[in-house]
């Protein structure tokens, strides 16, 4: 257990008939609830989410849901059998000693085991909302932004992460004039130089103007739209403006709980335990790492963590969580899948492949650190084998 966290002492697993409360409404929460039932948990399982929609997949939100080609509800995750869903009211407080969660409407829920999976929300920049700029995190955001982008002649994306680049790609496909503003080269921090250069070149070839410069402020434009004022004083105007500058963990409801909460997320031990009877999974989690507690807010990580967290909740001797990173993006006509630790540093070697391009990076000791499949249909299990086969 990390310093400052509630110490668990001897860990008592939640019995099969115990009450388990899952707080959160996305893939980590849904996976945890399903995993409990899958392993034969007979006690009540309740999922509490501030969202009014039942759990759905977020990856399509910056793709088909945004273009409007996917019908509403198509991204919904499989129904959760024998799980009580309480939607539309977020959790507001946690009392670990009393094993009780309080919801925003004052309802209290008692539990024997708690899974914290409240995820993250979009980061933004001061004044963005007043200037009419949008963020993209949930289904309602995607529908509203999609309608806006479909009617826009000009779109400005602030932020050069995968989400910003994917939205820029969709906006360009829909015919808008697109400017992407990022204070660092897009995608470099996450994916490394090589893949960053490839995708930025593809964006520029598709007609996107990429500006590497900080945004000083966002201003509402008369008659709608938003003006981005850059550090140089240069102004970029958009009928639609998206701010996509990362996400922040939803930990405020844990204030005063005694759990080890910081700006980086809810700190857990190597088993994903946060306190007595409390485990955590997904984008809210800061997991121990050699350089400090890190969040890895990716889909496959949320799935893997949710299953490991449930093991830690109900088993007397769980195995430590082991991350198996996988990240992918689709943009500007390219599909990129990455396995291994990110970012991929240095120049890769090319691995023979029947279709597309497969690249492999090695660390200073020659051991493979990452594999990328570019426009290549190889699945994740196969890419992992290439990583292990080195």
């Amino acid at each position, binding site marked *: 257990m990390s310093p400052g966290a509630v110490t668990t002492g001897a860990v008592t697993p939640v019995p099969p008939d115990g009450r388990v409360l899952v707080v959160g409404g996305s893939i980590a929460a849904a996976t945890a609830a399903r995993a409990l039932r899958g392993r034969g948990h007979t006690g009540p399982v309740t999922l509490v989410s501030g969202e009014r929609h039942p759990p759905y997949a977020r*990856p399509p939100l910056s793709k088909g849901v945004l273009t409007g080609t996917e019908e509403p509800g*198509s991204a919904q995750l499989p129904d959760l059998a024998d799980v009580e869903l309480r939607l539309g009211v977020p959790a507001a407080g946690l009392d670990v000693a009393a094993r009780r969660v309080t919801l925003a409407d004052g309802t209290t829920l008692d539990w024997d085991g708690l899974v914290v999976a409240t995820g993250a929300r979009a980061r933004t920049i001061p004044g963005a909302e007043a200037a009419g700029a949008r963020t993209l995190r949930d289904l309602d955001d995607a529908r509203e932004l999609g309608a806006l982008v479909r009617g826009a002649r000009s779109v400005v994306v602030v932020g050069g992460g995968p989400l910003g680049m994917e939205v820029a790609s969709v906006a360009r496909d829909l015919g808008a004039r697109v400017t992407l503003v990022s204070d660092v080269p897009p995608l470099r921090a996450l994916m490394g130089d090589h893949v960053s250069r490839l995708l930025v070149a593809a964006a520029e070839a598709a007609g996107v103007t990429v500006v590497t410069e900080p945004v000083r402020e966002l201003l509402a434009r008369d008659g709608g739209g938003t003006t981005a004022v850059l550090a140089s004083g240069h102004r970029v105007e958009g009928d639609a403006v998206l701010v996509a500058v990362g996400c922040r963990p939803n930990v405020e409801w844990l204030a005063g709980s005694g759990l080890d909460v910081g700006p980086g997320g809810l700190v857990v031990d190597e088993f994903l335990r946060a306190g007595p009877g409390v485990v955590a999974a997904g984008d809210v989690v800061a997991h121990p790492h050699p350089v400090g507690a890190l969040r890895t807010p990716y889909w*496959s990580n949320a799935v893997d963590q949710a299953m490991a967290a449930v093991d830690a909740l109900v088993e007397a001797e769980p195995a430590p969580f082991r991350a198996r990173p996988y990240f992918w993006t689709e943009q500007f006509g390219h599909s990129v899948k990455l396995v291994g630790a990110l970012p991929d540093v240095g120049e890769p070697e090319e691995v023979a492949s029947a279709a597309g391009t497969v690249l492999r990076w090695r660390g200073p000791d020659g051991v493979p650190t990452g594999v990328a499949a570019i426009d290549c249909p190889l699945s994740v299990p196969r890419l992992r084998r290439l990583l292990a086969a080195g």
Partner: protein
Amino acid sequence: MQISVDYARCEGHGLCEDQAPDVFTLDDEGDLHYRFEGQDVPAEHAVAAGRGAASCPVAALKVVP
């Protein structure tokens, strides 16, 4: 329990195979092969199959009770 596969939606990530290699496999072309197409999932594979379906990042796999 059955699983319905929306093959048009599938993007070949293979996270289902990760969870349930005896139920879902992806070939060299990234095409999904589902072992129990059109039939009930045998009881001994049901838990893994459900886990595989739920791990799909593009919601291409649906569980039909």
